[in-house]
């Protein structure tokens, strides 16, 4: 029997990027906010200090910062006629856990999405007609436009202190920036990171082919910065331990550096860590949430009543929480009806390995998580798809995030997988190899979705989330088209051997690709095809908001964290200025 606690105004399910940002802004308005975090509390000092934080075996291989899949896994299959099995070892994607969530172990790659991304269906059909879309594709408009999000993008970038070179300020192209960038109101808060040698090589190669290289925007900062919350970030020292790690230098924007110190000082906020939310409780009508039920670290259950429930977990877990709580109609792939779990999307990645001359000393270990040089010539809809027979695109860039010894062993094809010859090849190529990444759109398909697994349960006896996913043929064609262009760039960089990338089917969960799991609880203008309205408010239960990348109707070209931050501020704006004054649906269904 759950112990009933004193009611509060707001409860957040998860205290990562979206949870801490929501909590900070709402606690400032005087509301009593409780943050429920399933993982442990952790802070830059003492938890992230080296040498312990640079333990590659612990963090990169054994995934110490990730969701404990002994207790809570995800089951996976490629198609709905297969039987899904639990993923017992995270490889393809890495759902974070613990205070700060996945925004602790992110790389800091800090892009905005483009204007067309938010009106994707309208834009594509207007430019190419409906015939370009494969019949299985279910792309949609977001229900919010880039112009509406711009001030929130701006605010989030200034919260994080993003280092970058603007490419387009209010429509005026800026030399040295990305000419394909959506127009921004002002430049980045801090100048771009220094360009590493692999970036300079890529720049030379890309420019020789007429492309438009620019420095990757980074939330690992180029110089010290104090954000509008009065919190300071320091300068990145290029240690090469960003993704899968936390920053020991206060140089990477994360809840621990740019949000939590302000939030934890606010007496209206209470953090409860090691608390696993089991469900959102609904009243008899099923139209109103009364709070949440959670289990603490000892397994005791508590009912926490709240007027407003914010689902601020990792995107996959947002969807699972809705399904476990019976909020919204689950998606049925046969009939195409229902919404929760629909339009689960991923990211289409890959890229080339460029083996250089031995005189080219790349020094890949001197790196930061977002210190690439890249081009957007093949991003999104930046090129004419009319004759190509697919939609979408990828950015291409030399982005090397650290030449860590266990993970980075570039060897050319034909090298044995072990033994003396393998060791010799690693020694020969380690310092003379550049990785050129492809990273791009994931198109929604009616075949890809999330639901509850009928067989496997978590440590609390609740059904696991089941993922049914394979890359749509559209995305394979897109990736293969761009892979050819990347080989040309690799050769123009001076590559002696260029190993072509490009995505193939089937999708496998055993190779790292991206942690940008998106969709499943998507936003939109129509309750028949979306779970939440344009303010991330659940159509069916208006005092529940589902915040984060689960709201993306499909995934864009870019790493998505900054867009999540912008959407969070956008939803907060509606909650603070409209919902709190008159709680109820912000959009009439």
């Amino acid at each position, binding site marked *: 029997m759950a112990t009933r606690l004193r009611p509060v105004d707001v409860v957040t399910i998860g205290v990562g990027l979206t949870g801490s940002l929501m909590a900070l802004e709402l606690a400032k308005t005087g509301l009593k906010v409780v943050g429920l975090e399933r993982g442990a509390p952790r*802070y*830059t*000092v*003492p938890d992230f*200090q*080296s*040498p*312990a934080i640079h333990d590659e075996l612990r963090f990169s291989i054994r995934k110490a910062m990730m969701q404990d899949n002994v207790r809570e896994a995800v089951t996976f299959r490629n198609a709905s006629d297969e039987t899904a099995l639990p993923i017992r070892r995270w490889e393809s994607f890495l759902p974070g856990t613990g205070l700060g969530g996945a925004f602790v172990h992110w790389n800091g790659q800090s892009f905005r999405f483009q204007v067309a991304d938010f009106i994707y269906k309208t834009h594509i059909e207007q430019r190419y007609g409906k015939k370009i879309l494969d019949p299985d594709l279910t792309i949609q408009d977001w229900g919010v436009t880039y112009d509406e999000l711009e001030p929130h993008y701006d605010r989030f970038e200034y919260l994080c202190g993003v280092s970058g070179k603007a490419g387009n300020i209010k429509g005026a192209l800026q030399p040295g920036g990305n000419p394909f960038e959506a127009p921004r109101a002002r430049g980045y808060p801090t100048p771009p990171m220094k360009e590493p*040698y692999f970036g*300079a*090589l890529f720049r*030379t*190669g890309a420019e020789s082919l007429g492309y438009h290289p620019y420095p990757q925007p980074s939330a690992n900062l180029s*110089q*010290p910065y104090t954000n509008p919350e009065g919190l*300071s970030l*320091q*300068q990145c*020292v290029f240690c090469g331990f960003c993704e899968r790690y936390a920053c*020991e*230098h*206060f140089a990477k924007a994360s809840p621990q550096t740019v949000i939590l110190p302000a939030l934890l000082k606010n007496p209206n906020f209470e953090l409860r860590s090691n608390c696993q939310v089991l469900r959102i409780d609904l009243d008899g009508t099923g139209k109103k949430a009364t709070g949440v039920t959670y289990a603490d670290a000892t397994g005791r259950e508590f009912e926490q009543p709240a007027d407003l429930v914010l689902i601020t977990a990792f995107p996959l877990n947002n969807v699972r929480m809705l399904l476990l709580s019976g909020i919204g109609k689950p998606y049925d792939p046969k009939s195409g009806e229902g919404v929760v779990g629909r339009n689960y999307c991923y990211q289409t990645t890959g890229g080339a390995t460029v083996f250089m*001359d031995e*005189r*080219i*000393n790349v020094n890949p270990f001197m790196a930061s998580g977002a210190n690439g040089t890249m081009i957007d010539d093949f991003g999104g809809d930046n090129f004419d798809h009319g004759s190509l027979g697919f939609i979408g695109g990828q950015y291409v860039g030399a982005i090397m995030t650290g030449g860590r010894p266990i993970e980075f062993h570039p060897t050319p094809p034909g090298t044995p997988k072990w033994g003396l010859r393998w060791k010799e090849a690693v020694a020969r190529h380690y310092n003379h190899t550049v990785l050129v990444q492809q990273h791009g759109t994931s198109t929604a398909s009616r075949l890809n979705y999330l639901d509850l697994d009928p067989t496997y349960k978590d440590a609390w006896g609740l059904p696991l989330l089941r993922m049914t996913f394979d890359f749509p043929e559209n995305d394979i064609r897109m990736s293969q088209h761009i892979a050819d262009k990347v080989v040309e760039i690799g050769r123009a*960089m*001076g590559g002696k051997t260029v190993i072509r990338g490009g995505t193939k089917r089937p999708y496998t969960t055993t190779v790292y690709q991206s942690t940008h799991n998106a969709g499943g609880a998507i936003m939109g203008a129509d309750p028949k095809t979306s779970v939440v309205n344009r303010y991330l408010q659940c159509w069916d239960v208006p005092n529940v908001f589902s915040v984060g990348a689960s709201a993306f109707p499909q995934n864009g070209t870019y790493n998505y964290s900054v867009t999540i931050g912008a959407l969070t501020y956008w939803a907060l704006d509606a909650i603070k200025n409209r919902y709190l004054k008159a709680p109820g649906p912000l959009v009439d269904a």
Partner: protein
Amino acid sequence: MSRGRIIRDTLAAVTIVNIGVIWVAQAAANSPTRPPDLAKGAVIAAQGLPPSVPPCAQCHAYNGASDGSGAFPRIAGQSAFYLAKELRDYASRVRTNAVMTPIAKALSSGGIADVTAYYASVKAPYLPLASPDAMLIERGGQLAKIGDARKDLQACDSCHGPGGAGEPPAIPYLAGQYEHYIALQLTMWKRGLRNNSPDAMADVAKRLDAQDIAAVAAYFQQVDASAPAATQPMK
């Protein structure tokens, strides 16, 4: 390798591999035209280059242990890359010091390479010094290994290596460095009087108060880098 041969090779590299231009230019700027000569470096250390370069050993001792006063840093076993960079910074007055600047300016790039290679190669004993206050060392050890959450201060060891052992080539060791030298340098960074290093040091030093500076300085002086336990992280 003769100078003519190098020029020929350089031209060939430029012609054949266009992309190698940057590399060739960097290599020409950064590396001496011959490998450093330890014996020549030892002569500079012992005798100087009269009349403008006094013997390094006058202040730093022939074995690089200096005199223990802390007026002169310990340089034995310090990274040659780091020592050479400091000498170049003294010469260009990016790092200012009335004694070191004329000496550094008088050294050729070959002389700098030789003498820094010599001191980098020397193993010197640690001088017996009075041990500072134990509480101060304890506090300094905490800052060095863990940092200070209240000041958003990361551990010194994050960059300077476990036990302050250094992360060569760029980052100097602190283990066994003299208390007064460390304290003076941190104070200079804090006040903006030393500007020749990664911007990180000025930012860190500004977070340290006088007590913190005394503590880390006291702590690092007593770390015996020759003891195997010195580089073990705090449990």
